[in-house]
Every structure is written in C-alpha cells, then in structure tokens.
C-alpha cells in the first residue's frame, strides 16, 4: 500500500496551497492528529487502499504536449476550408470576445445569487435578454438554456402546460434531426405524442400535411431556415396552424439579421441555438440555447430571468426574478429542472451582438445571402450537379451529384476542403445528397475553388 503522507513536502500540489506546517496547525485547531481521522464516517470497507490507476500528475509542459498532439490529429476548419454547417457554423469571431471572457470576474464567478456583488453578470444577462427580444420580435427572453435541441424540448413542454387535455405536438421533419431526437428522448415518459410533417418539392414544409396534422395538437414547431437550408414561409404556416401554440426554431442565429422575426408573424415562442453569434464550433459545445416568448407566457418560462429594480438608495440594479418557477423553489413542480446553464457563452453572444450591432448583424446576414447565392449560381453551371430544392435559402444548400456523397466529399478533402455533410447521416433515401454552408468568412476564391474541385470530382467519378 502506497498512500502518500499529506504533510510531506513531496505531496504538495500547485493548485492546493496548504501544505505541511499549515496542515499540522489546522489539525491542532480541529483537535485530531491526522487528516484520515476526518474521514472516519466513510466505512473502511469502501475506502480505497491504493491510489487510482490514472496518469499524472502532469506538468503544464506534459499536458501541452499530449493535448496538442491529439488536436493535431484532427482535420478541421483551422487548417482546411470548411463548408460544414447543419446546426454549427463558422462565423467571424471578433478578437475582443475571448479577451473579455477570460476576465476573472466573468470566468470565475458563480450564478449571480447575491446581486450586490454580481451586478456585472446580471446586467449583462439583462442586455442579452433585450437583444433576444429585438432579434426575434417577441417579448420576454431567459438567461440561457443548454443548446438549440434542449431549448426546443423546453418549448414543447411549455406549450403542453398551456393547454389542458391535448397531448400532441407537431414537428416539421425539416427541424434539425438531433433536435427532434432530443425531443423524443425528453418526452418518452410524459405521454406526449409526436407527429412529424415532411417537406414538399421546394424543401418547405408540406402545407396540406401540416394542416391535417394540427388537428388535436397543442402546438407546432417549425425551423427556418430549415435543416435543408430553405427559408420557410411563416405567413403560410401561421394560416395553417390557427389556434395552437406556434414554436419557431432557429438553428442559424445570424439569419435573424435579415429574415423577418417570428414574433412579427404570430409565433408564440422562438427557441434556438446561439452558436452562430461568434462562438467557435468546438466539436458541438458548449453552445447556448435561447428562448423568447410572448409576454403572456413569461411565468411559464424555464430557466433564469433577470429583472430591473432599485436598491435602497434608489440606484438602478438587476436581480434574478420570478424564481418561483424554478427548481430550487418549486422542486418537483418547477417549469424545468435546469440550474447550471450556459451563462459564459451567453455573455460571448451578448458581446458579439453588441459589437456587430444593428448594421453588422445585417451585413453578416447579407454577405451570407450573397455569397451563398454566388455559389448556388456557380454550382448550377456544373453538369451533373443538381440543386434539388427550389425554395429560397439563407446560407446553406442541398447539393446532389450522381455519386455517393462520401466519394465526392473525399475528393474535396484531398484539396483541403471540408465540403459538406452527407444527408444520409440523418435521412434514408438520400445517398447522393449533402449540405453545404457558406458564411461571410468564405472568399470568392474559396467559392470558385469549391465549384472547380466539385466539377472535377463529378466529371472524374
């Protein structure tokens, strides 16, 4: 048995200040002769008799070596030109976001339970809530949810609470497949039926099927731009879904810079993924889910809300509010179980939205539109390449060739292009289709090269 003596100098660790002399003095004050005595309530039968079998302790030098070695084995947007989207987008990340996130006072603070010493976090959330409202055209936003998929789960649960006796939700099949899978997981024991409605030839939701499916449903959720890249016609959807709670899902948040906001069209809830607002793709997380609702639904909201008030001297200040919805007060009857959320990522998004502002958000969206339209035009000229969906797009295209998507994408990868995401990862019957995303980061040369390499691959295959 080789358990080290905690008071020996060899046991010290750079993250744990107290060592030999401190420990002995503290044990004296406590009145015991060893640290082991403090663990007597843990039965010997379950105590480890040896150290865990894991590597370390490593110095920073060793950690850098090993982790950088792993990172170097990835092929990513850092060393390739990436056209990958499908719910995670590479946009311009202003340098000052990360610098501000690394400020100790943001990075290493807890949830702002004590408002007198947390006004920085609280005011930032209040501003973030405001941005969400302005962008979506709805009235009340929360502090954050985990991501787009779980935000949709929370929205469905919220919608179900509003209506007694109806237990059916309609989901567009063109909502991100991971989001729909997550909804199925969340709802599996709650007695809620899920009905999915497919898309028509233009890639937009099938209106006839939508109208039929809403019968007996408490709510409906659609995504725009949808998973296939196509911008939905909110007005037509609203007309087909009278009298039920309407949920708009946004998986590409920069699209709100140019598309009409869901709130303007009679949607009750808008949920989505805020990653596109300057957050790196980072293999899927952490991202930031958002939820914005009509005024009348605010007391049904999941998650934290920050409100404005004053202190005893009349100074304006911010505080967590309407907490009686939440698990630490309502326990089993709360509107959600969420506690830890994505506060720091919401702060990053908040800084992004402030920097870009009214004009920048529009400019980013306009560049996405124009560059995507340019690539769409180039691809249309290539024999053998088909763009099967005629509907309007924002920054993502469904592309089809006569060959398996994997073959074509491998040819692009040879030229250091991450060329798209095969639709067959999510849908049967689409072996030759893949999704291609364009953002303001792509140069004309990137787009021309993409078309040229794709053209060569199609003629060669």
């Amino acid at each position, binding site marked *: 048995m080789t358990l080290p003596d905690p008071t020996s100098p060899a046991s010290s660790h750079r*993250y*744990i*200040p107290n060592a030999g002399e401190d420990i002995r003095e503290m044990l004296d*004050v406590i009145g015991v002769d060893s640290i082991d005595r*403090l663990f007597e309530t843990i039965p010997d039968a379950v105590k480890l008799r040896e150290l865990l*079998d894991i590597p370390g*302790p490593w110095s920073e030098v060793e*950690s850098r070596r090993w*982790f950088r070695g*792993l*990172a*170097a084995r990835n092929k990513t*947007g*850092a060393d390739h030109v990436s056209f990958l989207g499908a719910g995670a987008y590479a946009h311009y990340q*202003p340098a000052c976001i990360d610098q*501000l996130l690394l400020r100790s006072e943001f*990075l290493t603070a807890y*949830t*702002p339970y*004590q*408002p*007198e*010493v*947390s*006004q920085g976090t609280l005011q930032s959330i209040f501003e973030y809530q405001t941005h969400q409202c302005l962008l979506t055209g709805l*009235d009340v936003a929360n502090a954050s949810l985990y991501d787009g998929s779980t935000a949709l789960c929370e929205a469905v649960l919220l919608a179900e609470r509003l209506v007694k006796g109806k237990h059916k939700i309609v989901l567009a099949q063109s909502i991100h497949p991971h989001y729909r899978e997550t909804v199925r997981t969340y709802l*599996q*024991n709650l007695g809620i039926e899920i009905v999915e409605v497919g898309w028509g030839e233009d890639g937009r939701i099938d209106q006839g099927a939508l109208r039929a499916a809403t019968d007996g449903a408490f709510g409906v959720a659609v995504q725009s731009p949808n998973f296939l890249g196509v911008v939905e016609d909110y007005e037509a959807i609203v007309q087909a879904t009278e009298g039920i709670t309407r949920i708009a899902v946004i998986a590409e948040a920069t699209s709100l810079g140019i598309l*009409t906001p869901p709130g303007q069209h009679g949607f009750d809830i808008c949920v989505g993924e805020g990653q596109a607002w300057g957050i790196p793709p980072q*293999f*899927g*997380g*952490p991202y930031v889910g958002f939820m914005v609702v009509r005024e009348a639904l*605010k007391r049904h909201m999941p998650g934290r809300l920050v*409100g*404005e*008030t*004053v*202190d*005893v001297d*009349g*100074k304006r*200040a911010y*505080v967590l*509010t309407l907490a009686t919805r939440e*698990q630490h007060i309502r326990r089993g009857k709360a509107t959600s179980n*969420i506690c*830890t*959320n*994505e506060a*720091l*990522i919401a702060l990053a998004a908040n800084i992004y939205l402030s*920097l870009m502002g*009214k004009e*920048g958000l529009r*400019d980013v969206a306009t560049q996405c539109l*124009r560059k995507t339209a340019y690539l769409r035009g180039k691809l249309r000229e290539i024999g053998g390449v088909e763009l099967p969906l005629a509907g*309007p797009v924002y920054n993502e295209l469904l592309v089809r060739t006569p060959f398996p998507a994997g073959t074509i994408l491998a040819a692009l990868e040879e030229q250091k292009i991450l060329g798209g995401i095969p639709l067959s990862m999510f849908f049967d019957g689409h072996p030759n289709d893949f999704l291609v995303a364009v953002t303001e*980061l792509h140069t*004309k040369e990137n787009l021309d090269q993409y078309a040229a390499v794709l053209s060569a691959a199609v003629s060669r295959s």
Partner: protein
Amino acid sequence: MTEHTKTTALEPLIFERSKPGRRGYQLPDLEVPEQDLDEILPAALRRSEIADEVEVSEVDVIRHFTRLSKLNVSIDAGLYPLGSCTMKHNPRINEEIARTPGFAQSHPLQAEHQVQGNLELLWTLEQTLKEIFGLPRVTLQPVAGAHGELTGILMVHKALSKSGNARKYILIPDSAHGTNPASAAFAGYEIKELKSNSRGTVDLSTLEAAVTEDVAALMITVPNTLGVFESEIKAMADILHAKGAYLYCDGANLNSFVGIARPGDMGIDVIHSNLHKTFSTPHGGGGPGAGPVGVSESLIPYLPTPTVERREDGTFYLDDSHPDSIGRMRAFNGNFNVLVRALTYMRSMGPTGLRRIAQLAVLNANYIRARLKKHYHLPYDAPSLHEVVFSDKLQTPHDVHTLDIAKRLMDFGFHPPTIYFPLIVSGALMIEPTESEPKEELDAFCDAMIAIAHESQERPELVRSAPHTTPVRRLDEARAARQPVLRWKP
C-alpha cells in the same frame, strides 16, 4: 424608466450608449457580385431593420464590459464559499488547451477519420471517469448536473420498463437539491420525500419502510447537503437492490471523497458528476458545465447515443447501434470543450492530486467548523466532510438573520456562503471552502464571521443594513417580481 434611475445607474446599458453611425466591426470585402437582394430572397421574407439594436464602437464595448466585470466578485479574487457549488481554483492551462485551434475549430458532424484526436480524448476521459467512479461505463453527453440527473433517471425508467414495470416513485431525502425532484418529475416519476434523522442522514428503517414494489430508485446526495457521509450507503444499496430498485447518487459533492472511495464500490448504480465542481471547469457566472453519468453493468444498454468506442486497430468511432438506448440527450457531442478542460485538470492532478483534493477540502471545511462553532449554532453536529452548515439561531435573538450575516460578509470582502439551504435547517449558512484556500484566507474569513457574530450582539443595526461597501446595496426584489422589467425599451 425615470430620469432619476438613469442618472444613478452604475454603468449605462449598452443600449443607452448607442449612437447612430458608430460601428464596432468590420467585415472582409464581399468580393462576389452585389446581386440585388430581391432576386435572392423575396422582400416579404426580409426584415427592413433590427429596430433599436445598438450602434457602438469596439472601444465602447470593451469599456462597457470591463466596467461591468468590475462589479462582480470572483474566485480569482478570493474565497467564494458557496456550499454545494465547489468554487475552486480554475487553472489557466485548461483554458489555453481548450482554445487549441484543432479542438476549437472542429465541427461536431465531421467524418470520424477527421476527428480521431477528439474521439480519443473523449474515450480517454471516459476511461478516467470509470476509474474515478468505479463503474463500467460513463456517458459524457449531459451538459449540466441536472441534465445528468434526467439522463440517469430516464435510464432507470427504461431499464425497469424493459423488465415489465417502470414503477411510480423516486425516493428523495428532504435535504436534497431542488434539481433532484424536478429531474425525476420530467423523467415521468412522482416524488416521495424521505425524512432525515437527527444526524441529517437517512435511517435504514425509514428507507426500508419506504421501498415498496412501486419505487424505482432512491436519489441521494453523498455526502449529503450537510456534508455528512451516509455511512450506511452499502446497506441502503442492498435494501434497494433486494426490491429491484436502483440507487442514484447526486455526485455534486464528489469533491469530498474523490480518490478516497468510489461510488461503484458503495453499490451505487448511477452517478452524475458536475465537472464544473469537482473537476474545476469555470462556472462562468452560471455555466457552461458538464454532467457525465456513470452507470453499473445493468444500465449500460440504456446509455444515451452515441457512445465513443475504440476498435482493435486503435481507431475510435461514434456508435449509434444501441437499440435499447434512451436516445440522444442533446444535439452533437455534449459540451466538448468543457470536457477538454476537465481532462486537462485530471491529468494535472493525477492520482495523488485527486486524493489530495478531497483531503484538503475536508481539512479546510473542518478548520472553519472548529473555529466558528463557538460563535454560530451547528444544527447537526455529526462529523462533516467538505462543507459545514451553521444556522442563525444564536443571532436571531438580536433580530439578525442569515440574510444579514451574508450581506455583512460582503463588507469584509467575501462572497457569502449558500444561504437558506438545505431546507431542513432554518436559516442555514452552508460553507464550502474547497481545497483551493490557503490557511490565511480561511483565517480571514473566520475572523470576519466572528466579528459579525460580535456585531450582531453589539451593533445589530450595522449588520441588518449591510452591505455598506458594495456597488449597490440591498435590492427591492419584491418590486422586480411584482412589476417585472425584463428587457430594456427605448
């Protein structure tokens, strides 16, 4: 908003700094032809503007957020003894490694051969957590403690359903975190609360009486929210298992026994660990976190998909082929870049360092307990591990309450402990110093607490009206809830 509140704001809202014509960004040139937007996207689908959005420069933004940051206290600035929250030091090597471009710019839907580094990292983290938990599999998908709880209870539900009866109830002690009953409810269960005994733990007889054929699991925090270890944990597991029920452990307090004992060896079937607690990923003002869930053999078929697997040739892949899985808990692969930080931390600590975490966290908490027990009432005097819970019983005769003590601590430069929790203690002050605090800091904190105890007798008004030195003083929280103002309006 009145002019008065505007002029007395600490820092204007970013919206109040906005001036037409200012800009905080520059995009690269468009380069492609400037095609008429009407030809690309019908005007009916486009908004004319984002009314009332801000126009500010980069200077405005950096000053604004820097000034806001200065209104926060943080663990980097000093002791932040929130009980159950484990506010420990956040090493900066973790931040640096998470920002490695090969991790940060990797896309979640990339082909497996392009992300072997990421998959190996996830697989390695699972191996490490398996060893720490003493359990045979771990899912890394949940992104928070409560998300892990939901994952774990959904697995229990699925396993029991498979054997014919999902059952109706989850047992939860009255000392539990609020997320436990909330998660159990969203997994489809009703809650039965178990009363704690005079030590603050659960009696075997109480458990035995409560475990009927309708009980799916006991959800218990070990050590509990008083910091007291459930010494009968193995016997509890036996009682549950004999009735076909599961033992779920809320691992929020793993920091107190990591490397000392393992949940799997205690008969625990499911545990989530908050990586933003025990494994030091920064709390960031309320997240992001990660809540991996370890499970015993019988629950493996129900793990969320995909799992990360290693082939014999040493390559790694994501495996979706688990027919009995509860499904996907979230889009993509969990909070990957939180997982990177946590694994960096585990490697920095190693087996000796992980054990030392628990030893020093428990020593520090017991030192505070020893120094303060003459000055504050200890409602449960059973030996505690990493946190200690006092009450305001000795102060209430002077009309000084827990909230007042908490606010007064701010004047001494400390963040207050968790207050009014656990609910089984009236006026609780729940103190968790963690292993990160040097003795000098603990002494300064104890001196401040003792000074406040004296002030409560001698100058109670000073304590009742605290804080006096913070950027704002006590807030009108009732007004915030009664007339909610949840956004800025022009």
